[in-house]
C-alpha cells in the first residue's frame, strides 16, 4: 500500500507542478502566441496526470477498479488542441501578431 501511496503522491505533485508551470508561462510570457503554449501543453498534461493519480487512488479503495477519471484525461487531451487552435485563430483575426513574414497571403 505504501508503494501505491508513493505513486499517487508522485503523480499528484508532478501534475500540480506541470499545471503551475503552465500558469507561470501564462503569467510571464510577453506575447499572446507565446502565452498560448503553457496552458495547451503543460496544464493539460498536469491535470491529466492528476486525474490518472485519482483513478489509481480510487482503484485501491477496495470497491473494485475505478477508471472513469481516465475520461477526464482523454477529454482534456482531445479538447486542448482544439481550443488552442480556436484561440489562435481569433488572435490572428484580431491581427495580434507582430511578424507577418511567415503568413502567406489569404
Amino acid at each position, binding site marked *: 500500500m505504501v508503494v501505491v501511496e508513493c505513486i499517487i503522491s508522485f503523480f499528484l505533485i508532478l501534475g500540480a507542478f506541470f499545471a503551475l508551470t503552465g500558469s507561470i508561462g501564462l503569467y510571464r510570457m510577453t506575447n499572446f502566441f507565446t502565452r498560448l503554449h503553457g496552458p495547451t501543453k503543460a496544464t493539460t*498534461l498536469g491535470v491529466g496526470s492528476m486525474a490518472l493519480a485519482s483513478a489509481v487512488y480510487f482503484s485501491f479503495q477496495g470497491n473494485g477498479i475505478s477508471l*472513469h477519471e481516465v475520461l477526464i484525461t482523454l477529454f482534456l487531451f482531445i479538447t486542448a488542441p482544439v481550443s488552442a487552435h480556436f484561440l489562435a485563430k481569433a488572435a490572428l483575426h484580431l491581427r495580434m501578431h507582430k511578424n507577418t513574414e511567415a503568413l502567406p497571403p489569404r
Partner: protein
Amino acid sequence: MHNHKKPFLSAQRWLPHPLMTLMLIIIWLLLVNAISFGHIILGILFGVAIPWFTNRFWPERPKIAKPVQLVRFFFGTFLRDIIVANLNVVRLTLQSDISQLQPEFIAVPLDIADQMVISILASVISLTPGTVSAEITLDRRVLIVHGLDIPDQKAAVRTIKTRYEAPLKEIFSC
C-alpha cells in the same frame, strides 16, 4: 451520404461508423464506471443510435490502412513526444531570461488532403514540442504553425513533415 440510397439490410446503413460505435460503448462503460449486462446493452444502444442520428455530420469515415503502425505511432512517437514537449516547455518557461526565445510562425505545406487526417495532424502538432497549429489556409494546402522557440525554420518544417505527417499519411493511406 443519405441512408435511403443503400439496401435495407446492410452494415453501411445500420452501422455507418463501427469504430465510433466501439468508442461510444467504451466511453459509456467508463462513464457509469461499471460493467454489467444492462449497461453493455445500453452502451450498444447508444453506440448504434448516436452514429445513426449524426450520420449526416460524418460523410466519410477515416480508412485506417495500417492499424499496427497506428498503435506504434501512438505509443512510440506521440506519447513520448508529449512528455518531451512538456519538459521542453517547462525548461523554456522557467529559464531566467525569456527574451532569448525566438517565437516564430512557420508555414508547413501539406501533402495530405483528407480533412480528418489534417485535423489529426494539427492536434498532434499542438500537443507536441513547442508548436501550436494556428491556422489553415482556405485552400487547405498550408498549415500555419506557431513555435515557441524556433532557431531554424526549415529544420522545424522538416521535422514536422517527416516525424508526424509522413507516418499519418502512411497509416491513413491518403
